[in-house]
Structures are given as C-alpha cells and as structure tokens.
C-alpha cells in the first residue's frame, strides 16, 4: 500500500486529512446529528399538539384533573405527584449516566459498571411508571357521556364534586347481547369498547337524581370547565347525549377531546419507546463494560455516546412534562 500512495504535500496542514473539524470523534458527531434530527421529530409532534390545542383552546382537558393517581393510594386525588416522581427518576438516572461517563474518562471499570447499572434501573422504573400511567388513563375513573357532536359532558353533584356513573346509573331491565358475525348482520360490528352502562341507564339515573349537574368541556375565563344549571343540564343530556364513555382510547376520551388522548398516547408512547431502546442499548454497553471490551480498547467513548442518547431522552421528557402536565 505504502508504495501506491503518493504524498500530496499537505500532510499536517488543515486540509491534509486526519484532523477533526469540530474536535469531536466521528461517532460522537454522528450521535449529535441523530440527536438533532430526533429533536426535530419530537418538536414536530409537540408543535402539532400545540396546534390542536390552540384549535380547541376553550375546550381542552385540564391536565391535573386527568392525572391525579398515585399507585397504592387509591381514591386519593394527588395531581402531579406521580409524574413529578417520574421526572426525578429520569433526571437521577441521567446523573448516574454522567457519573459513568466521568468514571470512564478515568478508566475506572467497576465504577462505570455500577453507574451504568443504576442508570438501567432508573430507566426501567420510568418505563414501568409510564405503563402504569397509561393503564390508569385507559381505564378512566368517573366516566362521561359523549354528545351527538362528539363533545364530552361530565357529571357533578351540587357541591361541585365529580360523580361516577356507577353511583347514579339505574339498572334497567333488558339484556345486552354481544353481537357476533355468525348470528347477526355480517358487516356490523360492536363498538370498540363496551361500557358497563348504556346511555339509557345513565339518562334515567340522572333524571331521577335532582342534585346532579352537568359540566361541559368549555372553559370559563378562569380556565375552569363550565357547569350548567339543573334545567340546562337535563336539556343538554336529553337532547344531545348519545354514548357512554369510560376511560380513554383513540376514538373516545372521557376527559375531553379525543385528540388529547391521541397525542398523549402518541407522544408519551414515542418517548417511552426511546426510553425502552435506551435501556436496551445501556444493557448492551453495561455487558461490554463488564466483559472489559473498553478496557482493552483503552477508551470508554462508547459509554459517552450512549450517555448522549440517554441525556437526550431525559431532555425530551422535560419538554413533554411541561407541555402535557403543566401548561
């Protein structure tokens, strides 16, 4: 080889090759490229969430009425605490990651391994918490009625507290058969989610209880949903009500506009997928550290690269936290 390569006379000069234009290695630079493009993808999602929210600015769910649950504390309204805990877990796993990178610079193999281990644990706790949050959101708590126009109406008592459908819906006689293709019309299907009560049962229960009111999605000037008077409530439910909604899915959402649920599933799901893949990559690197791969390579730059990715996942969560739970 040596014989075939002509000397160009530029060795050691700026354009002679072999130097790093941005003083970062190829791998790190490519990780930054990826992070920038991924950041733009996430911005696209979050900005389109903002678009839909501005489109329905006077009827968007209030986040701390949606996410009020903490595991093992059933029935205790605790807005935001659990998601604050998740945020802290993710920031803390970022800290252990950056400590692993620091230990890597000093070639301390056992320390890198331990810090990587803690990072993986933190990531696993976060993904688990997110799964729990999804399950709670899908299950719903009070239940609501959807109107013919696709708007959500919720039920309150006269003290202004939410009332669950199960507390007032009347059991009406009559059986609800599950429709099957083999015994009915072949092209018709059951709704995606079956509810515990039919709309007629909810309506009968509502008319029988004089201290029930309806709350609409529309926000007043203080940002609280509007509560209708008893007469207006009856009129609204009887004329416009159509469907019982329990929990949230991609078509119906008892907390408000279905788009809120769609974006919640999509954005936190996409972020959760990033956390999951980050955990997998961290596990691979963790085993490489234990096996001594980087010890033999005499540098721990791989730890630094996955560290960049892991911090980026944390960075995205900071924004998701703000735009889904706070603002």
């Amino acid at each position, binding site marked *: 080889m040596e014989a075939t390569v002509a000397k160009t006379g530029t060795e050691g000069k700026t354009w002679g090759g072999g130097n790093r234009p941005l*003083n970062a290695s190829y791998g790190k630079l490519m990780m930054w490229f990826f992070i920038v493009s991924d950041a733009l993808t996430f*911005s696209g999602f979050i*900005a389109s969430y*903002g678009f839909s929210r501005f489109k329905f*600015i006077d009827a968007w769910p209030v986040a701390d009425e949606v996410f009020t649950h903490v595991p093992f504390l059933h029935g205790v309204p605790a807005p935001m605490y659990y998601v604050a805990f998740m945020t802290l877990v993710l920031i803390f796993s*970022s800290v252990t990651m*950056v400590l692993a990178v620091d230990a890597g610079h000093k070639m301390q193999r056992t320390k890198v391994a331990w810090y990587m281990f803690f990072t993986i644990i933190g990531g696993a706790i976060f993904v688990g918490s997110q799964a729990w949050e999804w399950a709670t959101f899908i299950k719903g708590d009070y239940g609501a009625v959807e109107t013919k126009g696709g708007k959500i109406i919720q039920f309150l008592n006269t003290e202004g507290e939410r009332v669950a459908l199960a507390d007032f819906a009347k059991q009406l006689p009559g059986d609800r058969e599950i429709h099957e293709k083999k015994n009915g019309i072949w092209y018709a299907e059951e709704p995606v989610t079956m509810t515990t009560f039919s709309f007629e049962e909810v309506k009968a229960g509502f008319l029988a209880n004089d201290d029930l009111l309806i709350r609409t999605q529309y926000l007043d000037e203080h940002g609280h949903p509007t509560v209708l008077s008893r007469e207006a409530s009856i009129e609204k439910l009887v004329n416009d009500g159509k469907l019982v909604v329990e929990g949230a899915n991609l078509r119906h959402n008892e907390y408000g506009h279905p788009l809120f649920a769609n974006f919640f599933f999509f954005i936190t799901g996409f972020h959760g997928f990033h956390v999951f893949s980050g955990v997998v990559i961290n596990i691979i690197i963790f085993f490489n550290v234990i096996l001594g791969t980087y010890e033999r390579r005499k*540098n721990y730059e791989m730890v630094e690269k996955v560290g960049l990715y892991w911090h980026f996942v944390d960075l995205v969560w900071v924004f998701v936290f703000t735009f889904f739970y706070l603002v």
Partner: protein
Amino acid sequence: MAHEHKLEIFRGLWKFKSNISKIWGVFAFLCAVTAVEVVLGIVKPESLTDSHFLAMKTLNWIFIILTLVKAYYITWDFMHMRDEWKSLRRSVVWTAVFLICYLILILLIEGDYIFDVYKMNYIKFDF
C-alpha cells in the same frame, strides 16, 4: 485520556472543585427547578393564572422559561456541550432552535386561526 471540564456554572457564580461535584451541583439545581414547577402546578396562584403576557398566561410563561433553563443545563453539563468547541455547539443548537421556533410560530398561528373560524362562523359544531 485527559479531558478538560469547565468547572463553573451560572457564568462563574458557582465554582466546583471536580467534575463529580459539578454533576451533583447541577442535579441539585435541576431538582430545585422541578420542585418549583410542581409546586406552582399544584397551587396555581390566581395572580399568575389570571394575568396574561403576550396572549399567554403568566404561569405558562414561567413554566416554559423554567423548562428551557432545565434544557440548557442538561445539554450544557450532562451532555458536555460546555466543553465542546464553539463550532459544534452552534451547529447543533442554532439549527434546532431556528427550525423549532419557525415550526411553533407557523403551527400556533394556524391553530389560532382555525379556532377563530370555528368560533365566528355559522357552522354549528357544539351539539
């Protein structure tokens, strides 16, 4: 591998002896900012929710600014942007910031316009 770390944050107001103590210092700062956000999110002081600045609630401005502060320290200290060359820093940050600002501006203006169309026109959509 000798790695140079700049060991001060807040423009030199807070100096650290080692990189490890800097990491813990930044962690404490991020926790403090998150705690402020959570407390404000739970309490929602009326003076901040009822006042507006540039068509947005003052409270939401505070949340967004605190988020950007957190993002800055995560990128600068955890991702070591502080220790990179200025050229790398700028090619990453300016590109993203410019494109994201443009995207947000365009989409939010459009969303607000559609809201007005729904509100002002003669289509009945609340039924």
